[in-house]
């Protein structure tokens, strides 16, 4: 473990242009360690571009962001080692069993055999997948796949977890089970940075931001934002903020 950074994620005038199009426009943002932060926005608002920069996958055009204290423009490779990333497509190997997926990704993260076995055992129990180690991933219900994908993202004890629309297509019960895990992980100090299209899920976050045209148009706790915009719920708030 390294010394904890003051901010888990911090952006200053972070911008990314594609030709004449500015996808992310002088974004300023500070997310504290251990926060569950909801990063919201309509399609095309710049969310994915910003996420890709935070994950060290895309260089900024100007400005800077720090993830776990590391500047993304010069230390993208190290940033990748400090984060866990779970995409909406999960990135699991359908033909491998649950155990094999963990083993495979453990290898990619550079863990040795003993460390992989120890950590996998721990995670499987925690995710409620310990009876499914031998099951082929393809045969798992969607909710199980999501938990396995979360396990994979947590293998290397990352201080920051990026979740890109993690619960698409699941019902409230499976989603609640997933979020109970997220609260547990955050309770241990892991920062969780999550995108979602489902506004009732935004209620699960400590703070949320809503991006419009590359900038943050609203930022605060769900309660603060609803009060400030006189919105009944997050869906109404979202539509008001994006001007739909």
């Amino acid at each position, binding site marked *: 473990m390294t010394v904890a950074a003051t901010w888990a994620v911090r952006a200053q005038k972070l911008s990314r242009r594609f030709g004449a199009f500015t996808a992310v426009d002088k974004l300023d943002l500070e997310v504290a360690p251990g926060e*569950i932060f909801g990063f919201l926005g*309509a*399609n*095309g608002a710049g969310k994915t571009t910003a996420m890709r920069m935070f994950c060290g996958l895309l260089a900024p055009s100007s400005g800077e962001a720090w993830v776990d204290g590391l500047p993304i423009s010069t230390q993208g490779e190290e940033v990748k080692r400090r984060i866990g990333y779970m995409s*909406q497509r999960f990135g699991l190997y359908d033909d491998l069993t649950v155990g094999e997926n963990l083993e495979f990704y453990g290898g990619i993260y550079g863990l040795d055999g003993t460390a992989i076995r120890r950590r996998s055992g721990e995670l499987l129990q925690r995710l409620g997948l310990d009876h499914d180690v031998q099951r082929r991933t393809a045969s798992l*219900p*969607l*909710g199980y796949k999501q938990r396995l994908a979360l396990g994979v993202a947590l293998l290397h004890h990352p201080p920051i977890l990026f979740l890109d*629309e993690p619960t*698409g*297509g*699941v*019902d*409230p*019960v*499976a989603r*609640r089970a997933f*979020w*109970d895990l997220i*609260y547990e992980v955050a309770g241990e100090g892991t920062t969780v940075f999550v995108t979602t*299209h*489902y*506004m*009732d899920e935004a*209620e*699960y*976050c*400590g*703070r949320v931001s809503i991006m419009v045209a590359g900038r943050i148009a609203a930022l605060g*706790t*769900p*309660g603060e934002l609803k009060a400030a915009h006189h919105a009944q719920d997050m*869906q109404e708030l*979202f*539509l008001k903020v*994006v001007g*739909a």
Partner: protein
Amino acid sequence: MKPVLELRDLVRSWDGRPALRGLSLVLEAGGTLGLIGPDGAGKTTAMRIACGLLRADAGSSHVLGHDSLRESPAIRPLLGYMPQRFSLYPDLSVDENLRFFSELHGLSTAERLRQRERLLAFSRLEPFTRRRAGALSGGMKQKLALACTLLHQPRLLILDEPTTGVDPVSRQEFWALLKDLAEGGMALWVSTPYMDEAERCGHIQLLHEGRVIAQGAPGAVAAAFPRRILRVEGGDPQQVRALLGPFPGVVVLRFGHNLHLVCDPGQVEILRTSLQGAGLGASDQPATLEDAFFHAVASAAEAA
């Protein structure tokens, strides 16, 4: 007048595993019926049976009085089915996709042009007729798929999780289109795992492991929630859990910095007093459809 869709006691297994254990419903013209349930609850199986694409092990399915399977040619012009992954041709333009599906449905040239104009206006895709379907946003793809499903002017529209993965603005637009269709007299049967979409239906059925575990108007299903919810603002979960020792069966749900305590009506006042004693204010939280869904699933699991 025959109902637009009538299912009776549908039963279907896959490799000995039951997917549907007796689903019945009646859907009339202008109605919007939501089939609400998780992945694997049997939603897609039921829809495929209604469309005549799959045989039920037992029970019956009728579309405007025609048996879905035996009279499949008769029901085909009556229904539009938009499966979860509607196969648009990504290399064809919006216009070419509409033309292709018009030809599949055997529309005359005059009729095809009339429907094209009507549906492009309806879906607001007019500015994009020459764009490749593969280059459309998720929301626009869904609207094009819907337009292709409506070319033959079906009386019954069956939509299997139509907005999964689509952003909130596009979902809002898509549901506005569905509302227009229902107001025009079309019958809509929509599956979704999302409660905010369930709330937009006139009537819903909660499907769990192939069985309907609750049904009615969304407001009525939420109102039938038999427990009470106390909302604790800014409560520390560990502190609150420590207070719950004398209150068995209270469920703690986290919502960011706040907690919802789900308890029995008889526990409310004493629980509130106990929280106040610890310096925590608790307000009454109205039950949502999501709360009702949790409760119905938990009760079904207990009964099983």
